[in-house]
């Protein structure tokens, strides 16, 4: 099994830390914020089809050869298929859909209905492996709903205590097929208020924080969507895609996709195409698109942000402080991949969801519909060509 290091992505730093040296979210040196990038000893990926969930890709996961213990529910795993319906409607010849949701008739088996299952499997395994000698304090998890639901699911299966902080608007996302008993705090406010409260409680009480986008485990888990879509012998394309589309809130999934592309490029067996990463947001709340297009980090004033968020359908895409400037973050992913950002209105979002249902036969969540409409816009604008290989990530199903 592959050993790993974590490399600071600050341009003037590059310090490497052993992956076996414990749970780490940041560089020790005094410089501007930077994500750590996991660097694996095995530069060529060996997939283990018999391993559960995302641990098929354990060579490129920061869990030191460990996986979550088998439980009464199978661990969710990435799924991809080639589209013909939506592809035909959009005039595309090589459209693949990474479907991260619950669609048992077709194959996808995520009982929490979102790709957050992948980041939680890996994040939890990374955290637990780093605490094996010392024991651990509970985790405080702040979530707009989907991540919290997945943490609640896997923590319940493992018997690990968690403390969930969720904005009131995210409570409807906490749906599981069995009863659980997390310590749940519904915060009157938005996602950013839930993060602030989780931080304050964790600091005072001594809980661990999973670190969000700073956590290499979270990003490595989400990166398996791209790894599967490229490498799976039946589902995948067998080569790197020209374009990747996804609706984004914090954008950590898009960063993870770009990190996967870089590893696959180094692997060398899947071509040399640096996949363009397309990020889409639900207007009127579009801080990532605003920042990218203006060339500077846009911080939306709090009251304006609250008003805008109140008018957004895809509430899970409303992170007020996405990791835009941080080294290795959104700006770097957009720049390095020559990516683009897109804005999607509520009206277009509903059209996109209906279009997807009509062509692919399943309801998708609003955040996923944002990605679908971004692809439609890109086709109209000529930003993608009919012959391009495209991966559209449906990050959540509706049911």
């Amino acid at each position: 099994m592959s050993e790993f290091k974590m490399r600071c992505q600050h341009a003037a730093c590059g310090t490497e830390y052993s992956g076996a040296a414990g749970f780490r979210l940041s560089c020790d040196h005094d410089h501007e914020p930077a994500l750590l990038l996991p660097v694996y000893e095995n530069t060529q990926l060996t997939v283990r089809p018999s391993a559960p969930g995302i641990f098929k890709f354990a060579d490129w996961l920061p869990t030191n050869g460990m996986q979550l213990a088998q439980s009464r529910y199978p661990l969710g795993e990435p799924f991809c298929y080639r589209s013909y319906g939506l592809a035909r409607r959009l005039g595309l010849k090589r459209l693949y859909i990474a479907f991260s949701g619950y669609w048992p008739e077709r194959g996808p088996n995520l009982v929490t209905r979102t790709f957050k299952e992948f980041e939680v499997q890996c994040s939890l395994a990374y955290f637990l492996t780093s605490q094996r000698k010392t024991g651990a304090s509970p985790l405080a998890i702040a979530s707009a709903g989907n991540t919290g639901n997945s943490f609640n699911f896997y923590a319940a299966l493992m018997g690990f205590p968690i403390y969930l902080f969720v904005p009131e608007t995210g409570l409807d996302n906490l749906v599981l097929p069995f009863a659980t008993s997390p310590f749940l705090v519904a915060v009157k406010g938005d996602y950013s208020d839930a993060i602030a409260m989780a931080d304050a409680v964790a600091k005072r009480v001594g809980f661990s924080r999973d670190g969000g986008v700073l956590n290499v485990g979270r990003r490595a888990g989400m990166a398996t969507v791209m790894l599967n879509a490229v490498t799976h012998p039946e589902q995948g394309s067998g080569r790197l895609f020209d374009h990747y589309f996804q609706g984004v809130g914090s954008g950590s999934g898009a960063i993870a996709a770009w990190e996967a592309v870089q590893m696959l490029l180094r692997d060398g067996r899947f071509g040399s195409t640096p996949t363009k990463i397309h990020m889409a947001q639900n207007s009127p709340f579009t801080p990532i698109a605003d920042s990218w297009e203006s060339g500077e980090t846009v911080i939306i004033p709090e009251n304006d942000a609250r008003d805008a968020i109140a008018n957004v359908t895809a509430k899970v895409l409303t992170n007020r402080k996405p990791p835009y400037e941080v080294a290795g973050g959104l700006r770097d992913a957009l720049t390095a991949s020559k990516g683009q950002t897109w804005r999607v209105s509520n009206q277009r979002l509903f059209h996109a969801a209906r279009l997807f249902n009509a062509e692919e036969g399943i309801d998708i969540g609003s955040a996923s519909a944002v990605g679908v409409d971004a692809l439609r816009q890109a086709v109209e604008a000529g930003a993608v060509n009919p012959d391009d290989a495209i991966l559209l990530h449906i990050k959540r199903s509706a049911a």
Partner: protein
Amino acid sequence: MTVAPNEINSVFEEIGEPPRISAQDIDKMLEPVTAASAQQLDEAV
């Protein structure tokens, strides 16, 4: 429980003394990744 951002003290009171997870408990939550059936991708794609 439902709280406003300025009501954080009520969260502290509700939490009380938090649990701690032992190293032995953690070991039960993990197992080595299945090594069998590794698939060489250059054969698969």
